[in-house]
Every structure is written in C-alpha cells, then in structure tokens.
C-alpha cells in the first residue's frame, strides 16, 4: 500500500484531477434538489419514475441526464462562468437572445417566415370585412429593435418590424391599422422598452394608448394625470434565456389604479401585487394572461381588446375612458368573438399584438369561428 502511495505521489496531475472528479461527483450527489430556477425562471426537471415503457421509448435515460444537468451542483455559478467566457470570446448573443448597446437585449431572428403573418392578416381582414357596422382597429406594437434602433448593433439578426408594419398596413382594410411606430420613435430618449424583457414599458404603452384614443376620435388622459410606481430589480424574459453575468436590471413601473378585474367570476385588483416579489414581475399586469376578463371602468362606452401580453400594461390606461373594458387572449378561449360581441355590444374593438407574436401566433384563426 505504502508503495502505491509513493508511486502516486509522483503524479500530482493524476491526483489533482481524480480528487476534483470525485469531489464534484460526491458533493453533487449530496447537494439539495431545487425545484425551480429563479435565474432561468423555469421549473427544473424532476427525477423520472422508472417504467419499462419509458425505458424502451428511450425517455427514461434522457430524463436522468436532464435531471443531472438541471440539478448539477452550483448550477447558477457554472452558468455565470459560461457567460463570462462568452463575453471574453466577444459573443454577441446567447440562447436565442441578441445583445445590443447599453444592456439592451432582443429576440434573435435569423430567418423570418412570413407565412403565418399573411394568414393572420387574412383572418383579421376577413373578420373586419364581415362586420362593417363595428368599429374595429388593429394595432401592431413594434418590438424594441424597431424603435430603439440605435441600441441595435450593426446588422444584428433581429426582427424586421418595418416589413411587418408595412405588410399589415397594406393588407388590412383601409383605415383599420394603427401604426404606433412613428410616435414611439419620437420618444426613444425615454424609458419606453425594457432592456431585459421583451415587453414595452408602461410608459411606452402610454404612447400607444394616446394614439389609440386619437384614432377613435377621443381625447387621451394626459400623461401627468397618472401616478407611476417604480419597482426596482426587474429581470425579464430575455435575461432568463441569456443569463448574462453583467446584466443591468430594469425598473418595472405601473400606474396607480384601484380598478377591479373579473376573471372566472372572481373580482380582484387589476394588478397581482404578489408577482412583484418574484422573478416574473410583468405577470402582475391583468394578473397574467386570462382567456377572458372584464374590467369595470368609470368612463363611457364598451371596448374589447383582443391581445397578447403587450396589452397587459396598456389596458390600465383605459379605465377612466370606458365603462367596461373586456380583454380576450385567444390562446385560452375556444369559441369565436361573436358571442362576446352580441352579449356586450362593444363600441370599439381593438386587436393589440406585437410584431414578433404576430409572426407565429396560430390562434387568430379562432376569431372567425362561431
């Protein structure tokens, strides 16, 4: 035995890596199992239950590998180490997120498929043309690369919002498309888009609100009539993917409001304040993405917003202008819009989508269902 040890001493490299391998392996085995990753804002894999079926479908072994990776000791530290290395290598992207200037991040788009956009515009046009007596508007919110153009690095693979806006303008019935891009572009020196999240800020949404009101011939409430509340340290969806070590956290803001929202017969504040304590802070607006919700306002007329999550921080502005604001997220409903329209008799219908969602959303086909 002594002999072997004397021999081994001559190989410090061998000893070092053997110790490293087994220290990490054993420490990893005994490290506590987390169920949720705050850093990545996602549920971590759970240890698979054995079944022959899963084994023969080659799912069991893959799940074991995923589990090992997801729960690897000091996972978040390894992720930061990779991020530092990537930055040393001068990488301008990670995991589908492209870095811009001043801490901005954008969704990576290397090839755009406009087939779904065309289908969506067809569906919307058909819907509008079949209902000539209703006032229907369609607003496409440009995402950050289309407005904060000086934050985008040269030739970055980001979405071509101009193409999408032009396409919508040219393919929707005359006078129904609201292009909010020029107005937002006038305010690029303000904080209108989050750096770490794919949404616009509540301030950015104000300019869209202003334009919407103007389009339907009404007066928007002035900006200074709203009280903004700031919440520090917001890390959004882009960050959850990119996990860059040198992130500059955002400040999430919302306008003070005591409006109530009714979702599935439960009435509560339009804000879910509990979300401000967790990573996914944007989920406070409209309490997430309900399929159908109704908000009681103190203005006149009824409006229906058919929307994606960009509308969530936009809707609170409407509370003082309409008596009833209904929102529909087509992902979570199964019937068409007519039932809602007949029941409520809306004066205005607004579709509000962002330029990236509209490229892939497959739910707009539902609006023409009965």
């Amino acid at each position, binding site marked *: 035995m002594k002999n072997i040890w004397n021999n081994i001493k001559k190989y410090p490299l061998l000893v070092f*890596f053997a110790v490293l391998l087994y220290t990490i392996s054993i420490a990893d085995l005994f490290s506590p199992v987390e169920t949720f990753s705050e850093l990545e804002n996602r549920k971590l894999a759970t240890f698979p239950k054995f079944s022959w079926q899963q084994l023969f479908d080659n799912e069991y072994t893959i799940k074991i*590998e995923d589990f090992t990776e997801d729960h690897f000791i000091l996972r978040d530290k*390894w992720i930061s180490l990779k991020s530092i290395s990537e930055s040393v290598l001068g990488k*301008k992207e990670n995991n589908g997120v492209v870095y811009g200037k001043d801490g901005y991040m954008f969704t990576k788009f290397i090839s755009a498929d406009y087939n779904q956009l065309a289908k969506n515009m067809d569906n919307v046009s058909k819907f509008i043309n079949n209902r000539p007596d209703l006032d229907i508007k369609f607003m496409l919110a440009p995402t950050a690369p289309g407005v904060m153009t000086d934050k985008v*690095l040269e030739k970055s*693979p980001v979405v071509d919002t101009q193409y999408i806006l032009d396409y919508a303008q040219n393919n929707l019935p005359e006078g129904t498309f609201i292009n909010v891009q020029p107005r937002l572009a006038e305010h690029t020196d303000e904080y209108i888009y989050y750096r770490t999240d794919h949404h616009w800020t509540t301030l950015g949404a104000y300019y869209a609100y202003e334009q919407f009101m103007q389009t339907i011939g009404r007066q928007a409430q002035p900006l200074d009539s709203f009280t903004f509340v700031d919440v520090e340290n917001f890390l959004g969806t882009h960050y959850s993917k990119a996990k860059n070590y040198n992130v500059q956290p955002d400040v999430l803001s919302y306008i003070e409001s005591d409006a109530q929202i009714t979702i599935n017969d439960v009435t509560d504040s339009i804000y879910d304040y509990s979300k401000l304590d967790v990573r996914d802070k944007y989920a406070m607006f409209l309490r997430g993405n309900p399929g159908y919700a109704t908000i009681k306002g103190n203005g006149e007329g009824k409006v229906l917003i058919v929307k994606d999550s960009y509308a969530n921080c936009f809707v609170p502005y409407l509370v003082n202008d309409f008596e009833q604001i209904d929102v529909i997220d087509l992902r979570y409903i199964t019937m068409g819009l007519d039932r809602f329209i007949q029941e409520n008799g809306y004066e205005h219908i607004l579709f509000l989508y962002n330029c990236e969602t509209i490229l892939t959303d497959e739910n707009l086909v539902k609006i023409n269902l009965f």
Partner: protein
Amino acid sequence: MIFSNIFFIFRFLAVVLILYYAAPYKYKNGIITIASLIFYSWGEVKYFPIMLASTAVDFFASQTIERHRDNKKITRIALACSMIFNLGSLFFFKYTDFFISNINNFFGTSIPLLKLTLPLGISFYTFQTMSYTIDVYWGKVKAEDSIINFSAYVTMFPQLIAGPIVRYTDIAAKLNTYEGRITLDDINEGIKLFILGLGKKVLIANNVGALWTDIETMGFASVSTPLAWLGIVAYSLQIYFDFSGYSLMAIGLGKILGFDFPQNFNLPYISKSTTEFWRRWHITLSSWFREYVYIPLGGNRKGLKRQILNMLVVWFLTGFWHGADWNFMLWGLYYFILLALEKMFLLDFLKNKKVLARVYTLIAIAVGWAIFYITDLPALGGFIVKMFSFSGGVSAVYFFKNYIISIIVGILCSTTLTTKFYDKFKDNNLVMIPLLTVIFLLSIAYLVDSTYNPFIYFRF
C-alpha cells in the same frame, strides 16, 4: 451516451473507474463489457441485442476459422457469415431507406420507409469486428479464446460510437495482459488527453458550430459570399474539432483503462495536398479501407489504370460510408477525382509551391465540407455558386464580430502550435495542471448551460 455530457463524466465514468480499478484483474474485462453495454444501450435500449449478436457472430466465426484452418471451405463459409452479418446489418439499418426512397422516386412507387433509428456507432463497430474476422482468416492473428475478452474489445465504450476504429491487433496484447495493463503513467497521460479532447469538442467545436447552423436556418443560398466563406470556415473547424476532440477523448479514456488506441487525426489542415489531408484525417478509417479494400483489390501493383479503378472503388465506398445520401457519394467521388489528379500530375506541379499548395488544399477541403454537409443537391449547388460568385445576401458583419475570436482560436489550434506546445510542456505540471483545470471547468460550465451541444455523427 456521449462523452461531452455531465451525466457521463460525473456519474457513469466516476462509478465505472472505481469498479474497474478496484476489481481483481480477471474481472476487469468483464467490467468493461458490462459498462460498455450500459453505455451503448443508454440511448437506444432496443439495440442491445444487436450488439450482443454482433459480438457473438464474429466470435464464433473466428473460432470456427481457427479450429478448421486446414479446411478452406469451412473457413470461407465462416468468413462469409461474418461479412454477410456485418455488412447486412449495416446495410439494413443505414441504407434501406435510401434505396427505398430512390426506388420510389424513380418508379413512382410508394413503398413505405422503415424509418429505423441508426444504431449508435454501427458503422464503426461493424468495421472493427469485420476486420478482426478477416485478420483471423488471413492468419494475421490468433482467434480470441475468451468471449469476455472479445466482448470487451467489441463493445469497449471509449471507442464504440465514434472511433477511432481500433483493430483487434492494436489491443490484443493488452486485452490479455492482466497484471501491468494499467500504469499510472498511462492514466496520467489519459487524463490530459481526455480533457484536451473535451475542450476541443465543447469549447471550440460547439462555439464555432452554431454559425453554420444559423446559415442552414437562413438557407444556404440566401447568404452573401463573405458569409458563405465565414460559414464554411466555421463548419470546417467544427467538424475537425468535434471529430478529433471525440477521438482524443476516446484515446484518453483508453489510456485511463490501460489501452493504446491508434492516433486518428494529425493536424489535417496543415496539409499541402488532399493526398496528405487523407493521411492526416480520420487515419484509422483510411487505413482500414487501404488494408481491407484497396490492397486486396491489387492496390497499385497492377498498373495505373487498375490503380485508378481501385481508388474509385475505395472513394465511392468511403463517401457512402459517411452517410446514406447522394451528396456523400458525390463527396467520395470528389475526393477520388482530386486524388487521381494529384497522383497523375498535380502533386509534381505543387511540389515547390508551398503557399499555393496550402491555399489549394484548404479551398478543396472547404468545398468538400460543403458537399459533405448539404444533403439537398440544389441547395448545395446554390451554396457553391455563392462561394465563388461574389454576390450579395445576408451580411457577414454581425456573424464576423460574433464568431471571429472563436474562429481565430480554432485556426491557431489547427496548426503545429498546439503540438509544439504540448510536446514542450506536457510533463510540466505547473503549466498543465492550471491549463487543464481551466479547460475542464469551462467545459463543464458549457455543458451545464448547453444551448448547443450536437452529436454530429448520427449519420455515420
């Protein structure tokens, strides 16, 4: 299972090494076999029996040949059984769908495809077991008497799924050495090679490889000429570092277990002709084809015409071995033409023109990789036109900035700088321990947050 994986390193390898080192000598080959069968079945449980059958067929065929040396007829039948089984299973799993879809295209029929998953590494291990039986038949080596030792050879996990193609003769002596098989010197060396191989795969290949995947997503014909070149350089680096990194990990693991596998890559991109390239690229495959196809066909001993024909056969098969599609055949024929031209006059012409020779070779290899990768023939044509027509398309600016450092690191590591450095410092622990620690820890970091970690030999 693949090597560049957290589970492999910190679970599988950690456990297998303890069992292997702790076990009494006579059980070590058994442990290799069991561990390797688990390793093999991990990704596709259903193919476990194929591995067993493959082992059994060649074991018994070779035993039969050994026992009936004097009876030519029996030895021939035994050899034929092995070849039919090996080539048959390779053909069945790898090529059936290719032929069915071509028959369907050609005759307008609609025979359904089998859609089989290719058993991991089948192209590698069928060649290995075949070479063993042929060697026994030729009398180059005595048939292995222990089925455990033989299974350990066939299934040995370090080299099972992506080479090097280890011949029985390479490791027969060590397989039958019990005491003294494993030396601390070898383990020490093996650790270094494994970590360097891991770094090649995870830090270089994966890092530059994402560029080529992006170009594929954009469409090969939509890029600008500079981006086409940037992309093909990136892919050339990816396939080299991926493949040679994998081979190096295999060689390192082999040493850790006490076996010496042959070298598989020797700085292929410093070649001054494609002839030289193929002496430096995937060496164990080229030498397999030379030994078991080219020389038996007569090699260069039957005149130039016959030699060229033999080369044609070898390169057609080499191409087709890499994948069941037309572009792989085209790729083989492409190299046949280049090699034949070089044999006839190009080598003489390039003899004292060092720079021209290198430029020619690198361009030829890059075009080769385009043919190798792009299965869709019209897209391939479009891409090659892009490379040489100086036309516009998606700009290279962003991709250049994003990848240039990784590409430069890759290029530097493709030269003799790395071998010179390694030869000079490999025994200097003050250099090697910190360097390998950095590579190892960074590789783990990339594996933990693996957004891009492909296994690119699924078609082989």
